[in-house]
């Protein structure tokens, strides 16, 4: 459960994020859409306490993220390539994250086993450092690493971008399976309206940092979104 209170972020007089009240209950998949500069990544960065909010605060399962670091034990994220350690191989990276999240090698291996399909034979045993992988494959690594250690909150920024069609379809399946657990919250941002309406039960549209639409996904959602962005 994530609650946002009076959150704003201002850069030299320019407000890029302004969310008065937003509540994301556990066991849901939450989609964030919006054009470039709408504040999606800023919101996620605030959630991860990577950016200090100008006013207001965020609570992640009762923990105020800029006051305590407790939320880190059950939250994981993949925002961009700064979440990857370029000089490690994929395996080394997974084990490293695993150790940070209290998982031993066997645990990590078991988890990776479930994602053989998703990796499509391009990640494990590649004899390459992460920095030498293609953008799409880096993304696969980052997304799977964010699932290590049974996190209760998973934050993925633009997870579908750069992925090939097969992997996009597999990722949608993974996200849907994840939120079957009532304790898990998945937050996803995307520019792809089709994907996001398919995987998310709830979709919030940001525009210039403000929530302009808050929809429970239904048959009509896609049309409504298209109408909104086609203004």
């Amino acid at each position: 459960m994530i609650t946002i209170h009076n959150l704003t972020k201002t850069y030299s007089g320019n407000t890029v994020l302004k969310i008065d009240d937003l509540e994301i209950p556990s066991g849901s998949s939450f989609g964030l859409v919006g054009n470039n500069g709408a504040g999606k990544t800023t919101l996620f960065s605030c959630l991860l306490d990577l950016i200090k909010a100008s006013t207001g605060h965020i609570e992640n399962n009762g923990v105020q993220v800029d006051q305590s670091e407790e939320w880190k034990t059950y939250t994981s994220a993949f925002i961009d390539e700064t979440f990857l350690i370029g000089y490690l191989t994929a395996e080394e990276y997974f084990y490293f994250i695993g150790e940070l999240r209290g998982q031993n090698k066997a645990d990590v291996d078991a988890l990776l086993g479930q994602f053989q399909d998703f990796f499509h034979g391009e990640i494990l045993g590649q004899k390459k450092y992460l920095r030498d992988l293609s953008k799409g494959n880096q993304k696969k690594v980052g997304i799977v690493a964010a699932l290590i250690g049974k996190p209760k909150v998973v934050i993925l920024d633009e997870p579908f971008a750069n992925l090939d069609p097969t992997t996009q379809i597999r990722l949608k399946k993974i996200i849907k399976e994840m939120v079957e657990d009532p304790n898990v919250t998945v937050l996803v941002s995307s520019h792809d309206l089709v994907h996001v309406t398919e995987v998310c039960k709830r979709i919030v549209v940001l525009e210039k940092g403000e929530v302009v639409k808050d929809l429970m996904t239904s048959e009509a959602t896609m049309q409504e979104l298209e109408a909104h962005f086609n203004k």
Partner: protein
Amino acid sequence: MVKHFFRLQWKSFWRSASLSSSLWMKILMGLAALYFIVVMLGGGFGAYFYIKKELAQDPLTVANQFLVYWIFADLLFRYALQKMPVIDIKPLLILPFKKGKIVSFAFFKTVFSFFNIIHAFFFIPLSVLLIADGGKPVTNTLLWLLSIVALLYTNNFLNILLNKKDNLVIIIGSILAVTGGLQYFGYFDITLYTAPVFDFLFTTSWAVLIPVVILLILIKLAYTSFYNDLYLDAGLSSKSKSIKTENLDWLNRFGKTAVFLKNDIKLIKRNKRARTTVLVSCMFLFYGLLFFTGAVEVYDGPVWRIFAAIFVTGGFLLSFGQFVPSWDSAYYPLMMSQNIRYKEYLSSKWWLMVIATVVSTILASGYLYFGWDVYVAILVAAVYNIGVNSHVVLWAGAYVKTPIDLTSNKKAFGDKQAFNVKTLLLSLPKMALPMILYAIGHYAYSPYAGYALVGIAGVIGFAFKDRVFDLIEKIYKTEKYKTLAAYKQKK
């Protein structure tokens, strides 16, 4: 055509993200350049008169004798420091530029590199004196000078050609060290064989053709190599070797710290920039020779011993430690959103520095040659480094917000912003405090009292480890957002 290149260069220089923030650094760099120019100028004049008056030898003969070292040392420095002539080539490839032009321009830039110009400040005064004071024939001297210029430019292009080869620098470095050592101790004098070559370049007028032809061949080779490499999958791609996943499980005995220690070891092994710090610390091992051999008079005072010993044992500590946590700048957001205990993270870096200091101290046992006294200085300096300096550099590092591009080693010496006032202040106790402590003991009682004081300071510092780590942790926390923002800026 060339006009476009110049315009692009101009803009990339003035608009780089680092420029505005690093005005001080630019000034410092300028001062450093000025310093080197003055040293070289002084060296040119000084060497001539020193050889003539003090050694009562022909300056030309002695110069020819040592030129071989000069040229190899030059290659070594270039390898370590000179930037590769890479203009932002990728976007130019599909534009209507001739490839030859791109390569020529890149090479043209290197011709005016500081590493080429600096030699002029030594050799031109030397040549002038050889003619004016030494009465050497003008043409011979000029042709000799030209030969040296050709050889130094040969180095320039050799460096361009060989820059990707990592082992080379180690090979050249060790050859230089071994031959230098053999000559110093009088076993084998390589200059006996090389001096005649340079003498030949002086006495025979057509001999100048040899270095010039070598230079031309190298330019041609470098040109073809670069020309053929102008493809995305060739020279412009980052080389990716086939590598293996490493286990390093034996480090698990370090407990929780092992998670980071394993990572840090990979960091050093797999990134050029980090490997350079290891190289630097090896070079610092030899730094003491300047002091303990009495080679430089200014450094003869007993207090300088401690200064030298701090560097000899602390080369790695100083060059690596001051950039913690910047080494992890590329993935700092990951570190900040993971459940990381700062103490474990810090103690991993601390252990690395301690291990490196201990290894350096063992390697420095070669200094026993200069007497027990010298080695005691090194031992107490090691204790001081572990006890006090390891904490001080980590503390100073917490304020350094320079992102480090791990894969490049361009700026290994003197990264920007590493020089801010806070780090400057914190670097004082690194050097000054042990020297003062020693001086107190030395002049008040005896040299051994001085050593004891420095050693005791080290042991006391060690006791404060946890306190200091708490302090650094607090700094990391308060500076977190600033650090994240600073690391976001590339270049």
